[in-house]
């Protein structure tokens, strides 16, 4: 079995030059210790690197070093000399050892300093940005998440439905019979006639989700339904595909006053202002009765639209109480159940909040636009952290 190399230390060589420096021993008492001390300390001080210092150490206190020699010679001395001379040699040894150590440390430090000085990177070289800073979420996705967060707080859950709808869900159930003039206004995309003569459509609004929800769920119902919708219309301000969010509440007591409150709460939370000027106007939609349109007040400063200031009005949504015929069409008794519905353009909301001037750019996938108006993945809308980025 091939074994993984565990590695190990390189022990290095061991005083390869030591022999050449051994000084021939004289009689110990003949040695002038002071002179020796000066000589050694000067040599230590002069050692240029760790290798030179090691040579000096070996020559002084190595096995065959000069001080070691003196120590060995002590035995031959007369006892009365041996003591004092011995002490002097020991003192010398300690002094030299200390100097060696100090010099060693100094040289090591100098060597490290020199290495660090040589390892001098160009810290101005650029690095790659983190991918999570490069990536973007489309404003539509971001605003949908914001809406979800706001309406979740108001007790709404999210419902969804298909883009390809039948006539019943998109029109008839919503109190828009085949000859109703509203059908014309919807600029519907049709699919080719099927064998039974009926034609599927691309949903012209998110309202079919109301029908699907009411037919599959028992009241109380509180949903929003965001999604793609389609109109056969394409010009400066219209795109054949755009996004809406539908809201629906059905129970036994919810009235227009509640609708007004919900929309006020929503606008305040979405535009992150303490008060939004809102104007509710009577209007008409086939699927609500009474019906309202809602404008919000704004001021325009240069490119910027400021919600909650100024005295200009901008229509943002249509709403009303669910029409009794719609309730009947989904099998609910209008005498017992009631509630409201509203529909807002998501793209429109995004444009108002974040200041994109042109709806068409939302779907052009121009990298420059996406990078400029897109959102970081870290901008998760939360109630605690805020629903705007």
């Amino acid at each position: 079995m091939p074994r993984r190399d565990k590695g190990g230390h390189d022990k290095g060589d061991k005083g390869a030059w030591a022999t050449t420096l051994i000084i021939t021993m004289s009689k110990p008492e003949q040695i002038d210790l002071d002179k020796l001390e000066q000589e050694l300390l000067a040599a230590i001080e002069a050692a240029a690197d760790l290798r030179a210092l090691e040579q000096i150490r070996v020559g002084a206190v190595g096995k065959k070093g000069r001080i070691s020699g003196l120590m060995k010679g002590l035995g031959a001395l007369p006892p009365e000399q041996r003591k004092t001379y011995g002490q002097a040699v020991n003192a010398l040894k300690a002094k030299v050892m200390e100097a060696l150590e100090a010099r060693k440390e100094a040289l090591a430090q100098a060597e490290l300093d020199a290495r660090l000085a040589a390892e001098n990177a160009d810290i101005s070289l650029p690095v790659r940005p983190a991918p999570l800073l490069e990536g973007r979420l489309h404003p539509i996705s971001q605003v949908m998440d914001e809406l979800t967060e706001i309406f979740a707080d108001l007790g709404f859950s999210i419902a969804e439905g298909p883009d390809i709808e039948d006539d019943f869900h998109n029109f008839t159930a919503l109190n828009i019979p085949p000859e109703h003039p509203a059908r014309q206004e919807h600029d519907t995309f049709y699919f080719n006639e099927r064998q039974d003569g009926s034609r599927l459509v691309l949903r012209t609004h998110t309202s079919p989700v109301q029908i699907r929800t009411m037919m599959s769920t028992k009241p109380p119902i509180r949903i929003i339904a965001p999604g793609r919708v389609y109109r056969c219309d394409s010009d400066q301000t219209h795109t054949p595909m755009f996004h809406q969010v539908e809201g629906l509440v059905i129970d036994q007591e919810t009235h227009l006053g509640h609708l007004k409150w919900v929309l006020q709460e929503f606008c305040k939370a979405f535009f992150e202002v303490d008060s939004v000027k809102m104007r509710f106007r009577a209007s008409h939609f086939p699927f609500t009765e009474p019906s309202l349109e809602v404008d919000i007040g704004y001021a325009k400063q240069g490119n910027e639209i400021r919600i909650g200031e100024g005295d200009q009005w901008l229509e943002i949504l249509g709403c009303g109480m669910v029409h009794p015929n719609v309730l009947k069409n989904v099998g609910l008794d209008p005498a017992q159940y009631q509630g409201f519905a509203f529909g807002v353009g998501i793209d429109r909301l995004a444009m108002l909040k974040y200041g994109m001037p042109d709806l068409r750019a939302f779907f052009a996938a121009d990298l420059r636009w996406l990078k400029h108006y897109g959102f970081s993945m870290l901008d998760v809308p939360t109630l605690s952290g805020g629903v705007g980025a």
Partner: protein
Amino acid sequence: MKFTLSWLKEHLETDASLSEIVDTLTQIGLEVEAVTDPAAVLKGFKVAFVERAEKHPNADKLKVALVSDGQTTHQVVCGAPNCRTGMKGVFAPPGAYIPGSDFTLKKAKIRGVESSGMLCSERELEISDEHTGIIELPDDAEVGSEAAKALGLDDPVIEIAITPNRPDCTGVRGIARDLAAAGLGRLKPDPIKPIEGEGACPQKIALEFPENKQDACPVFAGRIIEGVKNGPSPAWLQQRLKAIGLRPINALADITNYICFDRARPLHVYDADKLNGVIRARLGKAGETFLALDGKRYEVDGEMTVIADDSGVLGLAGIIGGEETGVTEQTRRVFIESAYFDPIRTAMAGRKLQITSDARFRFERGIDPQSVNLGLDYATKLITEICGGKPSLVEIAGQVPKTDRTIRFKTAEVGRLTGLSLQPDDITAPLKKLGFKLKGRGKDDGGEFDVSVPSWRPDISGPADLVEEVMRLVGVDKVPATPMTRPSGVARPVLTEAQKRVRRARRILAGRGLIEAVTWSFISRSQAKRFGGGAEALELANPISSEMSSMRPSLLPGLLAAVQRNFDRGLGDHALFEVGQAYRGTKPGDQFVAASGVRLGTARPEGAGRFWSGDNRVVNLFDAKTDAEAVLMGLGIKTGTLQVAREAPGWFHPGRSGALKLGPKNVLAYFGELHPGLLAEIGLSGPVAAFEIFLDNLPVPRRKAGRTRPALQISDLQPVRRDFAFVLDAAVPAGELLRAAWGADKKLIEQVTLFDVFEGGNLGEGQKSLAIEVTLQPREKTLTDEEIDAVAAKLVAAVEKATGAQLRG
């Protein structure tokens, strides 16, 4: 719908200011789209007198005029043929902005003659298209006064949007009635009185409809006025029509147009001498055509109501009259038609022939059926006043349809649906002003009424409609904003697992440096076919363009088109993704959600393009596989256990792509490099790595009852790592070797990492070397060398058996 303030005040007695009127209109559902004050535009334009006009010395067609504005005399060079001494016109001084020509007037020399100011034509003032000469004002116009007043243009014009439910407000009187009901004054009494006429109407009328289609035209009335003198209508009438953008034609035609806007009552006038025999309302017959007043010839069909005489079709009922029987200045005998045509049939005919007209606009919304006689009387009054003549008795065919409807209405409904708390009178008073008749049910009615609906309100059919009337007239702003109670109990997550997955997938991909795009749900059919779609059933019948005709089978075509557009803009290598729906069929269940992405060129998570550190290799299938696995892992899938199959569809490179599958049939994702042929077709110089993740195919995790995590089990025993290198047939997938290694001892083997793949060298043709690091985690006691060797031997045997690999010596 346009009208002027003075016109409104003919029906509404009010002290309200223009701005109050405008605000109230908007509040009650008659949304004001524009208020224009023509006087404001023409401020500074003065009535002027031409003291002298002589031929320009240097030009044959120009004149030099001396023009007095009452204070000064200006010399003006004028090119109008009607410029002459002694006339009165509209003078624009230097510095005035000429709206119809879009320029600001300056002093100038024209052919050597100084000209300061100009005399204006109607087109220059945007009054009409008239530009054959300058405006001639009547002699009594006061020189030096504001021209706007002399032109009758000092009357603000209000334009409102009419919702389809309000045919009554397509006439000024209906608007006045609404304003009165909203408390803005009093509706003046109707001055129109029945005019009986003399002598039987010589023009006979017949309704000829099959039994089951009589509702196409239940009533058709008319009369002849003999001895009329048709010509230009009087100034007041012309001004009213011009103010709302209608071109005056002649008195007879102008009168019908006026009544149409005043009373929402379309009428038609015929030159009776041009009619042949009985005039009939009937259904059209295939092949019949007629020449309409707009100069075009239309072909009718059996579903359209036409007006015909013995010579054939004259006009399209309720939409447009015929050229041949229309009134002219020579008309001496006029026949007035006042009828009721079915809204739906009118709408369908108009839509089919694509004719828009003021009459159609009203008939298709449903005019007041009871206005048949009123229309005749009003027209008779105006015609005899303006054109003279003697009216006959009224000839009538059919019967005015019954319009009396009664709704049982509890006033408590208002509070139930709107939250308004109102006194009974606050509810009944506005309804009465709108023309509803309320009858209490019994002595103590308890707020319950039988409400009869006026004939001009076909939109009112139930109590909710009455609630809307009360709400809009009392004021929507009075509805109290009422907090909704929160559902009781703990806040639950409102997103389903599927919804959460979509949101997470987006943020995972954005976190990997991809940029989210939103592309159209429809693509060209050829692209759809290229990506496995393009079925007939998913083709739009009326697409915006052939590039947007097929519901997309995949998100990749849209993303690739986007990448290509960006590349053509010189924006370099980049990575896009989209999370959205695609379509396998037309049923709701055929729609699926995909998270797909493309990386072009060097667009890798480390960053695209050239860089000093040298990290700029081009993308390959493994980048796409990493993206796909990152998303799947982020969504809770253990990607190590997925099958990797060579099953990616044809738009991928056949050798450099694959599918991540959970079980034999469930594809979670495709990944790979795109087919070079496809890239060549769409003009992208690759390479492009792409992935498609099918979010709906991911298993829905079972929700655990509690949130408690299983207890953490950690071993104090050191893990042991051993390396193995195998030589095997190059065609054997590495995955098989890894799976065999993993499976050798499920208890002890904690991790298997492939750290080297090598081909060539001295391995021999068709061979490769794979090196793995295996981590063993002892659980109870430190492993002995013998135990480790035993596991190693088991692993080698398992790998050999599964892949034929040999341990490298």
